[in-house]
C-alpha cells in the first residue's frame, strides 16, 4: 500500500465573486482515519467538502483523491473516483421523488449486477444499521430532519465506499440517537477501514470521534489549527481554538481576525 494519504489538498483557494472563502488551504487525509473539519458557521466547511469531492472547481489549487487530481480530471475519471466515495449532504440530498428504499437501491442497481431481491435485502440491512427499519416506503418529506440525515448516511454507505464524507451528521439529533450514530461511525471506521471526513461542531462528538481535527476560521479564510482535539483543547497556542473547545465566548476584536 503506497501513499498513506488518500486525499491531498494543495493550496486550495475558493472565491465566490469577489468574496474569498478559502485561501491557500493545504491539508491531507490519511487512509483509515476519522478527520473532523470544524469551525464557526460560515467558515467554509461545506465549501471545503464540496471541493474535496470535486463538486465545484476551485479558483486555484489542486485536490488529489487516490492520486487522481480531480480538479483537472475528465468526467469519466471523475466518475470512477466518485464511485469510491459516499457523501451525506448538509440538507441530506435524498431524492424527493423516490422512497427511502429506492434512494438507497439507486446506486446499487445502477452500478452492480445483483438481483433485485438481494438488493432489497441490502437496503433493509443499511436502513436497519441507521435505525430506520420499517421506513422503506416513506418519502423523504415524510421523515423528520434527523431521520433524513440517517437515511442519507445509509445511502452514502450503500456501495461501501472507501471514503465517507459527512456534512454535519449529528446536527439536530437527540443525544441518544447522536451517540448511537457516533458508535456506528466508529464501528464502520474500525471494521471496514473506511476513511471518514466529518464536518461537525458538536463538541462531544468531536472529542469522542475525531482522531484528528482541522479547524477553519472565517477571518483567516483557512486552517487555524490541526491535530488531536484532546491535545488542542488545552494546549493550542491559539486562544480562539481553546475558546472553541471550552465553549467560551470571546471579545470581538476590531480587525475581525483571530491571530494564527
Amino acid at each position: 500500500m503506497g501513499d498513506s494519504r488518500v486525499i491531498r489538498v494543495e493550496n486550495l483557494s475558493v472565491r465566490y465573486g469577489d468574496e474569498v472563502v478559502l485561501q491557500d488551504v493545504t491539508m491531507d487525509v490519511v487512509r483509515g482515519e476519522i478527520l473532523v473539519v470544524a469551525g464557526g458557521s460560515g467558515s467554509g466547511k461545506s465549501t471545503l467538502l464540496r471541493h474535496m469531492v470535486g463538486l465545484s472547481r476551485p479558483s486555484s489549487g489542486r485536490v488529489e483523491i487516490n492520486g487522481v487530481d480531480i480538479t483537472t480530471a475528465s468526467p469519466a475519471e471523475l466518475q470512477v473516483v466518485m464511485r469510491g466515495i459516499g457523501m451525506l449532504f448538509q440538507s441530506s440530498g435524498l431524492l424527493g421523488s423516490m422512497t427511502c428504499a429506492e434512494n438507497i437501491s439507486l446506486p446499487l442497481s445502477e452500478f452492480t449486477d445483483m438481483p433485485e431481491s438481494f438488493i432489497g435485502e441490502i437496503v433493509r440491512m443499511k436502513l436497519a444499521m441507521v435505525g430506520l427499519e420499517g421506513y422503506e416506503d416513506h418519502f423523504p418529506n415524510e421523515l423528520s430532519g434527523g431521520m433524513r440525515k440517517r437515511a442519507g448516511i445509509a445511502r452514502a454507505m450503500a456501495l461501501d465506499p472507501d471514503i465517507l464524507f459527512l456534512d454535519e451528521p449529528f446536527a439536530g439529533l437527540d443525544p441518544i440517537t447522536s451517540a448511537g450514530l457516533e458508535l456506528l461511525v466508529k464501528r464502520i471506521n474500525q471494521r471496514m477501514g473506511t476513511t471518514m471526513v466529518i464536518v461537525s461542531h458538536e463538541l462531544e462528538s468531536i472529542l469522542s470521534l475525531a482522531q484528528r481535527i482541522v479547524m477553519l476560521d472565517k477571518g483567516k479564510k483557512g486552517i487555524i489549527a490541526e491535530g488531536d482535539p484532546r491535545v488542542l483543547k488545552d494546549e493550542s497556542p491559539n486562544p480562539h481554538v481553546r475558546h472553541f473547545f471550552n465553549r467560551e465566548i470571546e471579545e470581538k476584536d476590531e480587525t475581525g481576525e483571530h491571530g494564527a
Partner: protein
Amino acid sequence: MKSSARKGGEDRGVSIVIGEEREARLSLSGRLSLDNLEYVMERVDPLLGRPQLVSLAVDLEGLVRIDSAAALFLLRMQEEARRRSLPFEFVNISPRVMGIIDLLDKSAIRLGPPSPREKSGGFFEDVGRTSVMFLDDFNQCMTFGGILLSEALYCALHPASIRWNDVVLSVKKIGVDGLSILALISFLMGLIMAFMSSLQLKQFGANMYVASLVAIAMVRELGPIITAILVAGRSGSAIAAEIGTMKVNEEVDALVTMGFNPVRFLAVPKLLAAIVVVPLLTFFSDLFAIGGGMAVGILGLGLTFHTYADLTSWALTVHDIVTGVLKSMVFAVLITGIGCQRGFSVQGGAEAVGNATTSAVVAGLFLIIVTDSVFALVLNYVRW
C-alpha cells in the same frame, strides 16, 4: 444669555428639558422607546447642530425605561458629539439603562453600512454589464444544448442506460395530462376561426373555403404553435422548477457524488418523452381544431360531414403534415432544453427557482416564435 425651554411631551411619556445655550444640558425623563423616538429626535437633533455649543451633558436621571432603539439613539448622539469633538457625557445614568446600552455592539455602529454589493456605474456600464450577462447566458445555453444532445445521442446508442420509468412518467405528465386542455383550446380555436371567416366568406358565397382555411392555418402554423406554447407553459416551467428545486436541495449534487451524470439522469428522459409526445399533441390539436371548424360548417353553413371532410383533405398535402410534425419535434427539444438548462442553472434558494421557472417559459416562447419564423421562411423556398 440663558435660555431654559421646557417642551411638552408628557402625553408621549417623555419630557425633554434643554438647558443652557452654550453648555447645554439635556434632560430626558419618562419612557423613551420606538413610539416616541421620532418626536424626541426632531427636538434633540437640531441641538447638536447649534454653532455656539461648547459642551453637552445628557441627564438620564428621570428615564424610567428605554428600549434598544432608544439606546441606539443615545449612542448615536455620543458618536456624533465625538465626531464634532464636543465634550459629551451622560449623567445620572441608571444601571438599568446602562445595561441596555451595553447590549449594543458599539463597533458595529461605527462601521457604518457595508458598501453595496452591486453598484450601478451609470448608463454605459449598465448596458455593458447587461450585454455581457446576455452573452454569458447565450453561451451557457449553447453549452448546455451541446451537452444535452451528446448525452441524448449516447443514450440512443445505449438504450439500456435510459431510465424508461421516468420517460413513461414524463410522457404522462407532458402528454396525457395536457391533452384535455389542449383539445378544448384547439376545438375553440377552430370554431372561432371558422365562424369569423365564414362571416366574411359568406358575402362572396365562398363558404366552402372555410374548411381549407381552418385546415391549412391549423396544420401548418397554429397547431404546432398552440401546442408548443401550451407545453412551454405547462411542462417547460414544471421541468425548470423540478430540477431547480433538486439543485437547491443538494439532490443534484448527491447524484453527482453517487456517480450519476445528472443531465443523463434527469434531462434525457424528459427530452425523449417530449420528442415523442409533442408531435402527437400537435396532431390532436390539428384534429380538434378541424373538428371545431366542422361544427361551424355543419351547424352554421349547411355543409355535410362528408363535404367538409373532403374539402379538408383536398386542402392538405403530405408536405404540410410532415413539416408540422418536424416543427413540433424541434419545439419539443427547445422547450425541454431551455427548461432543463434554467433548472440546472439555479443557485441559491426559493427565489432563484421562481426566476428560473419564469425564465424557462419566457425564453421558451421566444425560441418558439423565432424558430417558427425561420421555418416559415425556409419552408417557403424549400419545397419538394
